């Protein structure tokens, strides 16, 4: 099963994404903030990470930087989740190695799941750390 780590501080959102990805047969792990995310990444080595941009304490960009700086995690594809206000930061994230950014309010959960599928499909051509 493909493992996905969803890093999102808003429980409404994280529960919603958890449901859709479970429904699509992913093994879903949640992290509430940046610190927890970095711990869990080392633990479960997910296939893909969904990373919220706006979080308290450590924001998404900082988490991304840490992920990309660590060779053991730098090859995991990261998709940024953002609202309209965080679009600027999300663009910056692309230049820091994020694969894509998704504006939460513009896409149904199903669309988000489809987009993630496409990304993973694109990556399975290369080597991706499996569970």
């Amino acid at each position, binding site marked *: 099963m493909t493992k996905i780590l969803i890093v999102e501080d808003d429980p409404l*959102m994280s529960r919603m994404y958890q449901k859709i990805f479970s*429904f699509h047969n992913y093994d879903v792990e949640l992290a509430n903030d940046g610190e927890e995310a970095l711990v869990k990444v080392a633990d479960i080595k997910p296939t893909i990470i969904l990373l919220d941009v706006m979080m308290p304490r450590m924001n998404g960009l900082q988490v991304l930087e840490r992920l990309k700086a660590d060779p053991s995690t730098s090859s995991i594809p990261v998709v940024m989740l953002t609202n309209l*206000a965080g679009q600027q930061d999300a663009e910056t994230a692309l230049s820091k190695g994020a694969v894509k950014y998704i504006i939460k309010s513009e896409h*149904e959960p199903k669309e988000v799941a489809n987009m993630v599928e496409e990304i993973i499909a694109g990556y399975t051509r290369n080597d991706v750390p499996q569970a």
Partner: protein
Amino acid sequence: MTIRQKAVAGILCLSVLTSGVFYAAATVLVQNQFEKLEVRETKEHTSLAVDALNYLADNISLKLTDWASWDDTYQFIVDKNKKFVDSNLQDESVANLGLNFMLFFDRNDRLVVAKAVDEDGAGFMVPADIITSFDRFGIYTKDESGEKKGFLNIDGKPVLFAARPILNSVSEGPVRGTLIFAKYFTGEDQQKLANLTHLDVRYTPVQDRQAEFKKIYPGLNAATSAVKYQDGDTIIGYQFVNDYSGRPLFVTEVTDQRQAFIEAKKSVAIFLGVIAAVTLVSIIVAIRISKLVQQRDQTIKLKDEFFSIASHELRTPLGAIRGNALLLRDMYGDKNDQAFKEIVSDMTEASSRLIRLVNNFLDAARFEAGQVPISPDVVSLKSVADIAAGELQSVARDKNIYIRSEIDDSIPQVYADKDRVLQVIYNFVGNAAKFTERGGITISAAEQDDDTVKVCITDTGRGIPEDARRLLFQKFSQVKSSDSKSGSGLGMYISQKIVEKMGGRCQLEHSEEDKGTTISFTLPKATAIQIAASKK
């Protein structure tokens, strides 16, 4: 620097500049014009003061006339009779005449009798050397018409004198001698002259200080008056007054207030005062205005914060409602439960409607504040129209009408904000749906000649009445529709603003009662450069 500081600094600079320029100009003007006037006036005054001395001398001469052309005197000079002396040459007589000296000389310039009276009117012996002084000056009058008057320097004291030939009462000769009347030139005399001329005049004895005076008063001479500026407020005119032998005896000093200059300075001061007052007022006004600007900026900032908070806080839970409704559909919707499906569909639609409403309100507010976020890109109208039509199927089902897109790949790509285009299509179709009970709504597009693409929303509804047509794109205007759901009345207004921001135009193409309506909007065609850039 804050706006306030800039404004204050600017005003101060302007004020200083204006003051400086005015002061310089006024000073130059005053310097040029008034100076000429002052100098001329003071010179005139000085001449007047000098001439006034002649007046004193003339006074003495006048008194002298009676005595010099008098038979008694004529006789006395020859016979030196005592009667004459007793009746006429008493101390009081001399004092009453306002004189200090009376000297009678005969035809051979020999003193016959001399009378001297001091300032108290008491007689005293005329000292011999005074007589020789008079003698030295050679002021004997030898011919009948002779009259001499002026000043003498006797032992350092200025003496005013007049001398006339002694003649008979009908002024006939031959001349039998010279009669000299003289008086010391006193402080009283000075005062008299000052009063007479209404001038601030001083007659300072030169004595042996000629060189000193010449240093203090440049150009000091006996022939003409000269002037100098004492200080800011006074100008002094001066001239030598020579004694009878042509040596400087007095310095006549006339002190004039520079009246015109003082008035001018007052005017300048008043004007500078006005400038200062205006500056002060301006600064106060500027500070007030800058406070208002600050307040306005603060208000805008608060509005911005409100918008972003409202955006986020409203949309997040709305998004969660809609998302979860869709999850219900996706995860549990394959059960053939019609009621379930409708419930989910209504939840989705309601939350979508609410999201759109919130977006419309926030958009309208942002338009008012001048903020309209548009991020244009190369957009395929086909895909946008397909998405819109797909989303609107629930609306179509409800009203039993069709909502479909006829846009295909032959329509060129446009350069616009995809989400905004969606928003506009939703608004137009939603609006059309309100007035359409049968038939349906078609979204179509066509390329125009002017590098734009025109998108048309055509419905088969009851049409827009004439009087409502102008109001179509106005804020909050709504035509009464059969629908129970109305809306905010903002949708069409915002749509027009969005289209205009993207460089297009909205238009009511045509509307016919009971036949239908077509509303259109245009968008700029994507250029080759834009298309190439978007592919990167």
